[in-house]
């Protein structure tokens, strides 16, 4: 039993810090309902400009088209990379030998190379392969990421080998063991991986911008960035666009929050 004053102190601490982290989100929502000049002046109460901001945003940019594009690309990237990386992570752990462990170290080393360093050669490669202005050009480089492979490899470590042995004795093929045994047990890892990949794909800005520079392939982050490019920025409208851009990832995160925490810590049920 915790004493009352201690409890109060605990709550006060938690409330203050959660306010700190949630404040930008609240402020964003409030700013989306205000006129630009009020946002600049730091008005903290909701205003009546939501509709006007929305109309201005729709007039200036193709919001729903960009939203659709973002969803399309993010879902494709997420699905493909979950399949590829989970298979890779599973393989690295379950069938591990010296060579594969060495290879894994190389992959982890690759994690440390910043994207900007590889961007220009990658662009040249994609151009030679004829993938400029195609969805494939955007998706291919982001399908396999060292982080996801490592995440799946770590969680495969806690996957009981007895189950695999038992399944083999019962006559399941190796691929079927993966699909029927590994996949259902690792659901929370998949959820965590999905959240991370979706967010990364959704927020990915530089690469899609480089590879697909056509108005019809515009994604949400590009749209938001376009709004800040002028000499004069309409902050109310900008905040509304940011709100639209944030919502999907927020919703997905809240839905998968529980599994996300489990997946990251590597729990097996």
């Amino acid at each position, binding site marked *: 039993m915790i004493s009352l004053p201690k409890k109060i102190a605990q709550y006060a601490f938690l409330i203050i810090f959660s306010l700190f982290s949630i404040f930008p989100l609240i402020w964003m929502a409030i700013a989306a309902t205000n006129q*630009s*000049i009020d946002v*600049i*002046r*730091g008005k903290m109460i909701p205003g009546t400009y939501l509709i006007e901001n929305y109309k201005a945003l729709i007039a*200036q*940019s193709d919001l729903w088209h960009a939203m659709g594009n973002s969803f399309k690309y993010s879902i494709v990237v997420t699905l493909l990379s979950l399949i590829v990386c989970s298979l890779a992570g599973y393989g690295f752990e379950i069938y591990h030998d010296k060579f594969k462990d*060495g290879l894994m*170290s*190389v992959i982890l*080393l690759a994690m440390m190379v910043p994207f900007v360093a590889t*961007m*220009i*050669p990658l*662009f*040249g490669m994609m*151009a030679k392969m004829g993938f*400029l*202005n195609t969805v494939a050009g955007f998706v291919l480089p982001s399908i396999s990421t060292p982080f996801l492979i490592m995440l799946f490899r770590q969680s495969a470590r806690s996957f009981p080998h007895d189950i695999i042995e038992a399944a083999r004795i019962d006559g399941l093929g190796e691929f079927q063991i993966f699909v029927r045994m590994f996949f259902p047990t690792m659901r929370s890892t998949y959820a965590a991986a999905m959240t991370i990949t979706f967010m990364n794909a959704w927020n990915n800005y*530089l690469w899609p*911008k*480089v590879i697909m*520079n*056509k*108005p019809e392939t515009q994604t949400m982050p590009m749209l938001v*960035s*376009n709004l*800040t*490019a*002028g*000499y*004069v920025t309409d*902050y109310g409208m900008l905040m509304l666009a940011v709100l639209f851009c944030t919502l999907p990832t927020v919703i997905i995160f809240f839905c998968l929050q529980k599994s996300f925490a489990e997946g990251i810590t590597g729990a097996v049920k």
Partner: protein
Amino acid sequence: MKKRFLATLMIVAMSASMLAGCGSSNDAATDNAAATDDAAATDDAAATDDAEATDDAAAEGEQKLTVWCWDPSFNIYAMETAAEYYKKDHPNVTVEVVETPWDDIQPLITNAASTGEYSQLPDILLMQDNAFQKNAISYPDLFVDLTDSGIDFSQFAAGKLGYSTVGGRNYGVPFDNGAVIACYRTDILEQAGYTIDDLTDITWSRFEEISSDVQAKTGYYLLSERTGEIDLIMMMLQSAGASMFDENGAAVIADNAALKNVVETFNSLVDNNALLLTQQNWDEYIKSFNSGSAAGVINGCWIMGSIQAAEDQAGKWAITNMPKLDGIDGATNYSNNGGSSWAVTTNCKNVELATDFLNSTFCGSVDFYAEILPSSGAIATWAPAAEADVYGEPSEFFSGDAVFKKVVDFSTKTPSNNTGVYYYEARNAVATAITNIQNGGNIDDELANAQATVEAQMQ
């Protein structure tokens, strides 16, 4: 065992990256050669393509120009209006504007130029003036030389044209004006016993007196600048016709009398409460004069849009020229900050069409400039445009002054400036020097350091 393996791996990785690093300059040379060959080959191919394209075009009667620019209410609007004007006489030409922020255009150009893959670039793109020479010099294959294209470049203000001129050749069509204006709140000046005339044609030392006085009497600063940002320094420097580079592109930061004077003036303004330093981000800067901690702004004329956002301050602002440096030969009350120019890229398959389009709109139509001015505030740098009636119209926000005419007048008096390839590097080095000087560093030492930093980057 495992450790040894990892160590070997690291060594291999590092030496590989070093080798790649060493090889790059040679590679670049061969690449360049290859690129030129390629370019020649593509040119040939393009020529045949072109012929086919023109045939196709003639058959379908459709010709298209793609343009990159970034501000819907400003340069995109201007470009779209230009397209409409051109379409009147050339109904088969469409202009597709792709909204591309400046911050993206630079990496896209770097990508294209370093891989030799120009195919993604548009026909025409808008270039920030400060970056124009850098790109034109670093990537000689990037822009089409417009010197003999039939465009009359003598009709543009010399200070503006300098940005897009390299080795006497013109690579850009100047677009928006970046002439520096000084805007002050007349109501605040009045409270302190001054008028806008007291701030016209003055020197920085006089400005400092007035500004400190206004600050003491009203609590308002007459000028604000972001901490660590040196836009103002650059404006002051150019107003005296000085640059951070000489004509040959060599850095002149140490032993630059004008620059030293500018830095001393700037620091003196800060020390005497004549200049408010805001937080680093742009929003805070805008807020300083929108919400009333600063009663004055000195910046490129495009800042008017942000000032006018505070509608409740209408009629309380007035425009004049900026203060000039004391004791420097060639010091003026005029300078430039920002602005941009149109460039035709080598990816353009129909250069004749692109230049004809620019020539008959941005360098040939008073009506066009007159139309875009009122709603976009895009003030021309093309001298004949100022003849249009709208330029003489009074602005109610700025106390009934004919501000557009004033800006065009300022821009014709602005001395030109050498930006060179390493302009941004030099800016950063000088910004660091200023921060160090404000923290007690010696001005000569710090500027010498900045010079050394820039020279190291230039090697």
